[in-house]
């Protein structure tokens, strides 16, 4: 079976890629799409990097895999204890592990939630890791020293810069735009160099590399990229920034071209993004609104010495919510989750919502949220407020926010103590959208077709089938068969296999693939997925 190459483009959208392909900034991608297939790839209910890439990697939705956000937070006394989700929090087996234990060698570069890295057959370098901790995010461990010796490679420039990430929320000063874009141009080059090095020296059955600068640049530079917002008469500075953005995408196009050029001629190539992108035109300050409605009480800092004041301000600057827990019934923990948590009373007379009042309280909250209007436009601010059962069904649902908000501009909420509650942005910013991208080419893949949109959970069966492996019976989406020529599918029929293994079994082993099952449960599942009559 052919080798498989997956190129992840974090946050990529056809809204941007199509104009760049047409204008000649991304000529390779234009030709690749013309010779293969494309589709919109639909993200997770809250279209966000950690849950969405984890869904791509597991074939399961967040309610099953358990990753809902960047940050995992728990209430502790009068404070919120914050930590980051990591690979140990994923409650489902990943395609890296499934492929590895099925006898395939894999390379996985820069995918989030992969630290600590799984001990698979092949190489893993986790994404979203600060350079200070890359050493512990590499498998096998000696690969780290090997990479440090690569000419021109700066491991310090490969890492995730958490201070820069904060600027996505806070905005970037005009003088910082160039530095921001150049930083990501350099970062992508390093990840490309590593991918190229490993393809040469340690070829894998499945090579996957993710470029995340697309998302970062679109967040800050949306108005320079989306033709709908591009300035009609750009200033010299605006032209410079637009040119730099195009330089980023031009170089990305060349990396994609070279990686595909290096792959075996019979390799199949897939490209995917975790979510799409669009313009955010307003700010909704959810905690300020909850305060106005009487559901949330900010903690009074009281009298503080200079040191305590600095600590308080540092935490506010880092987007901590500092609340009076006794008098708070509902609140949002993070911007990125777009989620509201309802505090449940642990017993009679204790603060929070008693169990029997939970449903009516949540219903009432939804009704009020859906009535909020932007005074500048007269339009509703929130287009949907999904319960955790609706958004994230599954074994991990109880860890999801009680409500997940879908803002009318698909933006992220602000959790800060600032008014007004709703404010139109002076300049548009980039924000996530559910519609990401899918492109594919190679043996068996149709040529020149546009496919119907399909869910990102469909990527996992697609990649495993491309590798010639069985599709686990508990994957939540079927193989997007429309991507392939019927004759190829007849020659390579779908084989449904056993369920995935527990991620707690030590890295799910590396033994041979289990025999094809004739288990009646598996056969029923095949029917349910439409693979057999």
């Amino acid at each position, binding site marked *: 079976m052919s080798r498989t190459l997956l190129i992840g483009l974090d946050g990529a959208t056809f809204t941007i890629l199509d104009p760049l392909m047409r204008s000649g900034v991304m000529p390779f991608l234009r030709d690749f799409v013309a010779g293969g297939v494309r589709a919109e790839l639909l993200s997770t209910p809250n279209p966000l990097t950690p849950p969405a890439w984890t869904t791509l990697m597991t074939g399961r939705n967040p309610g099953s895999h358990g990753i809902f956000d960047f940050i995992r937070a728990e209430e*502790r006394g*009068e*404070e919120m*204890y914050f930590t980051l989700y990591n690979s140990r929090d994923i409650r489902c087996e990943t395609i890296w592990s499934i492929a590895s234990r099925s006898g395939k060698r894999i390379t996985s570069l820069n995918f989030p939630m992969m630290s600590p890295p799984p001990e698979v057959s092949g190489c893993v370098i986790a994404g979203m890791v600060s350079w*200070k*901790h890359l*050493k512990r995010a590499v498998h096998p461990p000696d690969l780290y020293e090997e990479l440090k010796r690569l000419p021109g490679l700066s491991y310090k420039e490969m890492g995730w810069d958490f201070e820069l990430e904060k600027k996505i929320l806070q905005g970037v000063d005009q003088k910082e735009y160039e530095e921001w874009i150049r930083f990501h141009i350099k970062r992508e080059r390093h990840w490309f160099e590593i991918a190229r090095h490993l393809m040469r020296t340690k070829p894998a059955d499945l090579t996957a590399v993710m470029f995340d600068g697309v998302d970062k640049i679109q967040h800050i530079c949306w108005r320079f990229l989306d033709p709908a917002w591009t300035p009609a008469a750009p200033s010299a500075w605006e032209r410079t920034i637009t040119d730099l953005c195009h330089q980023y995408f031009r170089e990305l196009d060349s990396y994609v071209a070279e990686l595909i050029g290096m792959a075996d001629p019979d390799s199949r190539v897939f490209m995917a993004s975790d979510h799409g992108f669009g313009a955010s035109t307003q700010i909704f300050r959810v905690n300020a609104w909850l305060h106005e409605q009487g559901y949330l009480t900010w903690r009074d800092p009281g009298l503080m010495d200079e040191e305590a004041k600095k*600590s308080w301000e540092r935490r506010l600057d880092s987007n901590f919510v500092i609340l009076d827990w006794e008098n708070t019934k509902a609140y949002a923990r993070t911007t990125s989750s777009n989620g509201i948590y309802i505090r449940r009373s642990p017993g009679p007379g204790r603060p929070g919502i008693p169990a029997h009042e939970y449903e009516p309280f949540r219903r009432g909250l939804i009704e009020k949220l859906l009535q909020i209007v932007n005074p500048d436009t007269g339009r509703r601010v929130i287009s949907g407020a999904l319960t955790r059962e609706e958004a994230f069904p599954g074994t991990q649902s109880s860890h999801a926010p009680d409500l997940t908000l879908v803002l009318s501009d698909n933006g992220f909420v602000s959790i800060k103590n600032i008014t007004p509650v709703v404010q139109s942005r002076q300049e548009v910013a980039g924000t996530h959208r559910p519609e990401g991208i899918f492109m594919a080419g190679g043996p068996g893949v149709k040529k020149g077709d546009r496919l119907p949109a399909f869910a990102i959970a469909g990527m996992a069966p697609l990649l495993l089938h491309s590798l010639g492996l069985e599709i686990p019976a508990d994957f939540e989406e079927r193989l997007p068969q429309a991507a392939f020529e019927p004759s190829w599918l007849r020659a390579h029929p779908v084989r449904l296999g056993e369920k995935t293994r527990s991620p707690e079994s030590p890295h799910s082993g590396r033994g041979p693939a289990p025999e094809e099952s004739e288990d009646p449960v598996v056969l029923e599942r095949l029917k349910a997925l439409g693979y057999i009559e």
Partner: protein
Amino acid sequence: MGNAQSAAGTDRKPILKEVIGILEDMTSDWDLEFSGGIGPDTRLIGDLAFESIDMVQLVVAIEERFKRRDLPIEKLLMEDGRYVDDLRVGDVAGFLEEHLGAAECG
């Protein structure tokens, strides 16, 4: 005070030595100005220039080393419901001695 014997599957080295080993490995690439050698009095923020993300990674490294994810880390990082300003290496080791040992007794 207990020792590293209480951590499932680990050897019997004193916990302080284990914590120092984790920190030496973690910080070996950091180009720190601090050059005194890591010891129980070394401050994570003051000497090793820890940022909040480094504390998150230290917790992961400790949990991986001692193969435990049920440690009440917030008791180390927070006091009276508030985050402590700085920690010494000895504080971390003391916390582990108390809680790894307690788990074994319990």
